[in-house]
Each structure stands twice: as C-alpha cells, then as structure tokens.
C-alpha cells in the first residue's frame, strides 16, 4: 500500500459544502470533489476533513466509526492503555485505524492527507 497516490487531485480551492446548521456536532459528510473523496467530521464543534478512502482497499472512510484505541509505549511505561477516545477513525472495510485530526494511520508509517475545514458566515468551508 505504499505506492498509492492518496490525494493527488486536491485543488486547494475553497468549497462550501454545507450550511453549518446541517453539520452539527456528532455528524459527518462524504464530499466528492471530482474523483476525489473526502470525509468531513464535526467532533464536539470542531470540523475535521481527511482523505476519504482507505489506502488498503479503498473503503469509504466517511462511514468509519469514531472511537478510542489501545496504545502501549514509553509514555505509558509499556503498559497497554485506552487512548484517543472519539478521535480514532476505524475504516468500515477492514478496521484500519486513523487519527482523524492528523491523518496518521495507527501502527503504520503512513499518513492520510487532511484538509482545512472551518465555519465562515454560517457555512462549512472546505479547502480541497
């Protein structure tokens, strides 16, 4: 899965994707821009946008559940702990996990593209 172009069609243009009232906390949207797919989430009032297809077998990440996961590292003194509650996007295909805020795949040297997304004049604006 290393040679897959992840978001080569991003244009960097300013796209209004929804009225802010239509994307309240706890909801998400799938945004298709040309052939590109982007998953947009409202988590507790903050918007996040991430490349919309899993690099494994291209399942749509907009349908993934947001939950926590287990970590085990020097900071946890090599004990297994639950972490990142509500910020781990689990692919609905085969459960590969991504940190929704950064695009980092958990347990892989791989990062999905993320996109600026914010509210402006009552609209949700995506830069893609």
């Amino acid at each position, binding site marked *: 899965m290393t040679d897959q172009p992840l978001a080569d069609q991003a244009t960097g243009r300013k796209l209004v994707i929804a009225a802010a009232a239509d994307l309240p906390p706890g909801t998400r949207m799938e945004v*298709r821009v040309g052939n590109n797919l982007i998953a947009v989430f409202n988590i507790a009032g903050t918007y996040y946008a991430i490349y919309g297809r899993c690099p494994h077998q291209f399942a749509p990440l907009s349908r993934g559940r947001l939950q926590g996961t287990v970590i085990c590292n020097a900071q946890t003194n090599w004990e297994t702990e639950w972490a990142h509650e509500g910020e781990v996007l689990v692919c609905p295909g085969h459960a590969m996990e991504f940190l929704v805020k950064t695009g980092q795949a958990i347990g892989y040297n791989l990062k999905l593209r993320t996109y600026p997304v914010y509210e402006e004049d009552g609209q949700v604006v995506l830069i893609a």
Partner: protein
Amino acid sequence: MPSEIDDLDIKATKVDAAFTPVQDQDLDQYGEALAQYTIVDTDVHVDDTLMRMVDYMEGHYQKRLQAALQADFRGEPGNSLRNMIAHVNWLGSSYDKPPRAKLATKTELLERMQLGIINYSILFPSELLPIAYLPDPKWAAALATAYNAFMVDEYGNLPGVKIALVVSPNLPDHAVEQIAKYGNHKDVVAVCVPDVGVNPPIGDRKYWPIFEAADHYHLPIALHGIEALVHDNYPLRVSHFPTLMQVHSMGFPFTGMLQVMSVVCEGVPVRFPKLKFCVVEAGLTWIPFIMYRLDTAYRQYRTELPALEQKPSDYIREWYWGTHELEALPKRGDLRKLIELYQGEDTTMWASDWPHLERDLIAGFMRYDMSEAMRRKILGENAVRFFNLEQRK
C-alpha cells in the same frame, strides 16, 4: 450543493457510521470495467449457524441439537461467554473493533447477485468449518448431512449460485454417501474438505474413498481453512498463540502448505490424475515456497515417494488457488510477479470471502497491475473451468 466554483463536480452527502462492514459499494465504481468480465466469486459465505441446521439434522442428533439450542446462546455469537469460549483467549484482539463480521442472509446474497456484476457465487461453509476436528466424527457427519440438505434446499436453483458440499474427512464412508447423494445435482460444483486440524493430513489413504467418489462425479476438491478454534493438531497448535492475529496469520497458509504437501507426497495426483484440487482462503504468497522447497528436498528424498512420476511442483502447478485473503503486497506489480513465480496464471481464482470481516473488496484485486488476459482469467475464466460451470449451468 452550493460551491464557489463551477467547473468541478462536487457532491456533499450526509452519512452515518457503519456498524457492519461496508460490502460491495466498490463494485459499481468500476462500472464498464467490470462489465466486460465473467466474474466468479470463488468463496462466498451464507448463514449456516446451528439454528439453520437443526431442522435438517436427523434422528437423535436433531433432538440433541434442539436441546442445546434451548440454552441461552441461541446460535448468536457474542451474547454468551460459553458460546465464545473458543475465542476467549483472543477477546482483546479483533473482537473489540467494529465493524464486526456478519453472515449473509439469502436476501443479501441475492441482492448482491442482482447488481449484475458477479456472474457466479460459490458458497462455502462457515460455521461448519471446524467439523474436521470435532472429537466425535459422528457429530461432524451429522452436521455435514444437515448442511448439505439445507444448502441444496435453500440455495439450489438460484441464478448464478453454486454450492460446495461439505464432508467430514474423519468419517470417509459418510462423506462418500453424501457425494453420491448430491454428486449429480446441477448446482453442486465442488466437495469442500475443511482442512484445519485434519489428523492425519488429508493425503492419507484413509481419505482416498472421498477422492475416488469426487473423481467419479467430476467434482473438484476444495480445501477451506478456518482461523481460530481450539485443537492441538499440527501445524496450528492454537494454544501456543496469545493473540488471534497470530492464529489467523499462521493458520490458513500453514494448513494449506501441510495439506498440499500431504496430497502430493502421498501420491494422490498419481492415483487420481483427473481429480482437481484447490485451496481457498489461505492467500497466495506461500505457494512458491512449498512448491520449490519440496522440489529441493525431492532430489534427496525421492525414494521416500516412489509413486511420484514428476517433481512435486509439477503436481502443485495443477492445483487451483483462491486469491483471498490477498496479502498486502507493497507494489502494484507484485501480484503479477508472485503469480508468475508459481506459474498460476491459469489456476488463480478471484475470491472475496464475502461477507466476512476479512473479505477482500474487489478494489483490492483491481489495484494490482497485470495483463488484461491475466485479469480476465483470474476474475472468472479459471473458476469456470475449475468448477465446470459451463457443464453445470
């Protein structure tokens, strides 16, 4: 949807999180690209939980299974610790992450077929796969009897739907009876031998009546593995593995290698030269290893295998292989290279394992580069030949 630019096709849709795995949404992405192929899904699973079996059990086995199903678990995995006892060592692994695997209903199977993309689905057992190592082979045979009757009754005479019989290898006489009973059914296209935990391995003479019967009815033998239940037979002594990931990763391919080696080294292809074999749900990367590893040893140990008339890889090259579970090969050309290495362009068959959690989406196969001819063969032509689908339309 409002947008500040006009020249780009933009569509924003509200969606919900999926609590069951996404399935074939990717099939329609390919539109015309897939329409030109005959597509055979070589490994498909429908609901064969014990509740489905009970009406088809015979004699006291039916009464005893009815009593068992009156216990609290009702055939539904997950709501009883006793029912999950086989998984209890591994509860902390894949079982805590959605999406969870589901078994498909008949309606779901037909809906998938009605997309018009997959021409044939070959149905394999799911819940019945542990029968090869049930302690009492008579129970295994009773379950196989019920499964075959259920499948022919429920899934026979459906367009494009074909069935692999299941037999319990540890009671070969019973397996022969089952093959004779259904061998001429137009929708029965293979004999599935669950291969995990089979002791002795499947090439042993004990099982040859099964091969003889399958050969008689021109049915190929399909070996199908299973990942994780408790048994202590080589090569998968699951008690040694603390995580399900390890059981899963080693279990399927090592079982496949063991059984391929056993069949070849016991001389089965010499005794039954027209009988076809395949391995499904074991991936592909191990195939060149076992072929050429055996060839190397054969030079030294040939006198242990006096029945063989060719080197081992010459026999193994005749086997067929289901693609699932496609290993995560890093480069787009790697699958073609792998298949070239085991000379499998004419013997590799696309298989999804739908709808199980680890199923391969078709995108997982389409992402690999290969010639048009190779893709056409793997998506359907090889399976049409292996399962005699033209003859059993």
